[in-house]
């Protein structure tokens, strides 16, 4: 392999500094930024042992989410501390696929660009990006948040296609929870135009003619992430910051709604956990989801009260 043009190597055996150890051909992309230094690592572990977190939170305390709504319906910016995500929903009328003539379509588009953090490359999706995309799909689409049948306008002819776009603007840890929250609030905030069906004829009323209708939703799931650390004396931490995330031994993400219905439990590798421990964490997550639900409902109500929808 190394006798040919160096471009062929593309760092087949990347060394620590990003150089291929055999031909010194440098990997085209920037080497991943360093893991935290030894003093940072030791300080984080020792302070967590004393139940102290670097931003002054308790171990099981979330950063308070800030929700900002845009001028359009279905545009939401969610901020957890310095982590910021924008979610936007738009709807389009399409012909349904023949195998599912009675259901609307929901597609989720998310991308982690280097804008969020210099750790993310453009081009090849990183492991984090794959995890976030899959988890968003599980939480927002597969757990049946939106009633897909209500999106059907004319069986086999016309259905709504909802497109949820998620932009990650800044990553200061726990991007997944922030993206899920932004996505679900955007769906709650969105209102689709009113449609009228007479025979085979479909009329879409412009929002200025008839008030747009909210999506019919089955439930509102929230994602909560807990970080576990290699030393068993350190208790799990809710809503980990960036440093806590990189130094953790494993993350446990739980998606559930305020009605105590569990949607997704995801634990990709990391420390082994006892069943009792997981049940305990789920119990904590239920309380947090209820609190979160309350603030989201309040913010949505506030925003709707401040909005004037013109109906002629």
């Amino acid at each position: 392999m190394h006798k040919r043009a160096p471009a062929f190597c593309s760092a087949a055996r990347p060394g620590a500094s990003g150089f291929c150890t055999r031909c010194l051909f440098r990997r085209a992309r920037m080497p991943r930024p360093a893991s935290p230094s030894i003093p940072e690592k030791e300080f984080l572990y020792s302070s967590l042992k004393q139940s102290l977190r670097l931003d002054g939170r308790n171990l099981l305390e979330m950063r308070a989410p800030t929700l900002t709504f845009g001028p359009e319906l279905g545009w939401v910016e969610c901020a957890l501390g310095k982590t910021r995500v924008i979610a936007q929903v738009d709807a389009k009328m399409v012909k349904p696929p023949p195998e599912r003539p009675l259901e609307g379509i929901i597609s989720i588009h998310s991308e982690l660009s280097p804008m969020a953090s210099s750790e993310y490359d453009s081009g090849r999706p990183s492991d984090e990006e794959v995890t976030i995309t899959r988890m968003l799909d599980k939480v927002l689409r597969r757990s049946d948040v939106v009633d897909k049948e209500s999106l059907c306008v004319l069986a086999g002819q016309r259905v709504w296609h909802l497109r949820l776009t998620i932009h990650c603007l800044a990553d200061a840890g726990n991007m997944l929870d922030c993206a899920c929250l932004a996505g679900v609030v955007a769906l709650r905030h969105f209102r689709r135009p009113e449609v009228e069906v007479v025979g085979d004829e479909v009329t879409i009323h412009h929002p200025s003619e008839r008030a747009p209708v909210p999506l019919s939703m089955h439930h509102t799931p929230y994602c909560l992430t807990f970080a576990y650390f290699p030393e068993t004396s350190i208790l799990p931490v809710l809503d980990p910051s960036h440093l806590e995330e990189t130094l953790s031994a494993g993350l446990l993400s739980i998606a559930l709604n305020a009605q105590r219905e569990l949607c997704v439990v995801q634990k990709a590798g990391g420390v082994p956990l006892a069943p009792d421990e997981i049940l305990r964490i789920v119990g904590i997550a239920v309380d947090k989801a209820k609190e979160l639900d309350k603030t989201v409902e309040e913010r949505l109500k506030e925003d709707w009260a401040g909005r004037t929808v013109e109906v002629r």
Partner: protein
Amino acid sequence: MSLVLPGEHVPAQHVNLKLGPGLLQQSSPGGESSIIATRAGELNHSANRARWWVESNARRYVPAPQESVIGVVIARSGENWRVDIGAAHMANLDGLAFEGATKRNRPNLKVGSLLYARVSLAHKDMEPELECFDAQTRKAEGFGEVKGGFVVHCSLKMCRQLLDPKHFLLPMLGSRFPFDAATGLNGRVWVNAKEAKHIIAVSRCIEAVDPDGGGMSEAEMKKFLGTLDI
């Protein structure tokens, strides 16, 4: 004081002109030279209009010679170490650029060690180089490996302010409890104190005062310090 954008002409003229960060001298074929800005920010000059510079805020560090920085050792390559200083490229640190280092007796750095060093070479076409001693006297002058403590990340404007002896934050914190701090101009501040809660307090205060974060003023900071458990 005025705002400039990259490429804008700057009316800097003096027999002994000194240009600071964000300014560039451009010479035209005709022989006359003009000064243009390379950064967006506030244009400042000294009282006698001899020194000019552009002040702005950023998060990405661009190395400049003689600036002290805090870096993390990433790898060892032969005699040298490769150090991450938060710039677009890794910096090189000669294994002999320490006080009292000889071929036989070298400092024992590990991958992940934290360093307080000075940028000795910063050129746009080359990787930056660091040194941990004064090249003339060969004394450490405070540079070298730092052990223990914690690194706070902040914006570049914040760390420049922390180096200003007239800035209120570090003296205010110092009057409450003793601590050590080493400020790197690359947006990293190393802090050490006896108790973990004091280190956390310093870290949160820097975050709160940072114009890129909370942006608190002195009076707000005093109130905030009162709410902390220290």
